[in-house]
């Protein structure tokens, strides 16, 4: 299988910050809003270099979303930033009415998604955000896998006309995709070709999927690993093409198995190519305090869980 090298662990939120720094220098219409979490979102450099294009809204996310919608009227491209929990579930109706239904060009950029923010516990660990956002008509949902890809996605969404939800996280994880890659919204990335099973992974679980595939290769199982960085619109063509070859699929995501990537894949397959599928995802529960590694282990979100899911799905072929 194709080998990938970790260029050094970094957090995806810093990839977002790096993308914002570049956008601050290259796109004068980009503005940023934050609800009292500048340091956590890594947007210090953007703010330092473009103070007039930054809006500190205080701990008031509903107003932040509404203001973002308003800023588009006049041609601005607002990046509204907070933790994933407070940027989606807390302000769902504001996003629904003022952004999505109104068709506003707002980028909702959310850090600390999933359980891997760790010790803060379930109040801050949203596992429902992909589902909430993908259900909104017209909303694009992106969950990049590492620092480099998050930076590239951040830059790419500024060029996309329409509302976007960009989801990233807190922990330092392997950074293995190319520096200065071009990010194409909605285009799944083939990471490693294989013949026995398709692994469709998103976000932090892409690297875990690669580790699992390597372990499985040693057991004589050939995995095809695809990075589904865009959950909506879903690259159905790439998924069908792969599954036609392998005949079974494992989806992997740091999200509730209700409403996430796995369900989008299942709907696609049910309509076009019914196929055995296993879900690596949180089984309809809240998270809890712990280290990211402990939580990934406990909630079945690591390479071991993916490996087991592959073994299970192969029996169902």
């Amino acid at each position, binding site marked *: 299988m194709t080998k990938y090298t970790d260029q050094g662990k970094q957090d995806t939120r810093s990839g977002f910050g790096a993308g914002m720094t570049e956008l601050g220098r290259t796109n004068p219409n980009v503005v940023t809003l934050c609800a009292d979490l500048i340091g956590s979102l890594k947007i210090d450099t953007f703010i330092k270099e473009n103070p007039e294009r930054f809006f500190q*809204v205080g701990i008031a996310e509903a107003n932040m*979303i*509404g203001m973002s*919608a*308003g*800023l588009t*009227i006049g041609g*601005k491209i607002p990046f509204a930033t907070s933790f994933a929990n407070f940027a989606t579930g807390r302000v769902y109706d504001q996003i629904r009415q003022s952004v999505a*239904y109104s068709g506003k060009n707002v980028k909702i950029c959310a850090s600390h998604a999933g359980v891997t923010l760790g010790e803060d516990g379930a109040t801050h660990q949203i596992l429902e955000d992909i589902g909430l956002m993908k259900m909104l008509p017209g909303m694009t949902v992106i969950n990049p896998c590492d620092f480099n890809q998050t930076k590239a996605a951040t830059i790419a969404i500024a060029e996309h006309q329409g509302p976007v939800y960009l989801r990233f996280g807190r922990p330092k994880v392997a950074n293995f995709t190319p520096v200065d890659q071009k990010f194409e919204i909605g285009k799944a990335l083939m990471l490693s070709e294989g013949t026995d099973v398709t692994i469709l992974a998103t976000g932090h679980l892409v690297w875990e999927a690669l580790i699992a595939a390597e372990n499985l290769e040693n057991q004589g199982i050939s995995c095809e690993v695809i990075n589904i960085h865009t959950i909506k619109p879903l690259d159905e063509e790439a998924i069908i093409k792969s599954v036609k070859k392998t005949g079974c699929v494992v989806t992997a995501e740091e999200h509730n198995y209700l409403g996430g990537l796995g369900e989008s894949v299942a709907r696609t397959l049910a309509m076009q190519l019914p196929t055995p599928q296993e879900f690596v995802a949180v089984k309809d529960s809240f998270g809890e305090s712990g280290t990211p590694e402990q939580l990934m282990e406990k909630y079945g979100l690591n390479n071991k869980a993916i490996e087991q899911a592959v073994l299970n799905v192969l029996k169902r072929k």
Partner: protein
Amino acid sequence: MPNTKELQDLVFQVRRDILRMVHKVNSGHPGGSLGCTEFFVALYNEVMELKDGFDMDGRDEDLFFLSNGHISPVFYSVLARRGYFPVEELSTFRLINSRLQGHPTTHEGLPGIRIASGSLGQGMSVAIGAAEAKKLNGDNKLVFSLHGDGELQEGQNWEAIMYAGSKNVDNLIATVDRNGQQIDGPTSEVMALGDIGEKFRVFGWEVMEIEDGNNLEQVIAGLQKAKTLSGKGKPVCIVMNTMMGNGVDFMMHTHAWHGKAPNDEQLETALAQNPETLGDY
């Protein structure tokens, strides 16, 4: 000086439009619409500086955001009569495949509408965003908004009010329609609002009052005064006292017509009190 005779004629015609629109589909919100008719007529025909035609960005012209979207009938009528879309289209209000949805939306591309509203409490944040965009663009035109008094019970308003006062959004003129009524009864009983003006004031706003928001000359004078108060470091709040259902005797002094349409007989009575001036659609 404005030609108040022409504007008064328009007020009568807009009232007729409102009544006929809600009657036809036996739904919609006539009470608040009638209460704000003078405000809308004044704003769009005397107060705001508007460009010809419509584009979403609205640069170099004044903007208006309706937060309490349920009073869409008055908004649609005044937009149509101002030339944003054909007056005949008012007959499609709330019908399937119409651009005139029950609550205002951008989704169907109706000229004059810049945000969906109806889920209450969101309009001020949007207006603030648009006002900040104007500042960034070096555009010295103003942003107006309208809010129901009952709507202020929604918490997001107070996030927005705090922001605008704290961050000196002085190109925003937000009017509160103080009609004292909401769906379940008088605001004083449902959730007393207290001294609204004082609340805005302690949040850092410049506050003024329009004593009778159904007196066209008072409304025009009040809005013009608000413009002179803008640009001085503080957002401007107008507390505008209105009568829900104004212009139709049996719809006044009650909250009963907040979201209820008149029947045939009631429509006839109501229209008789508001003679046709510019021609029905």
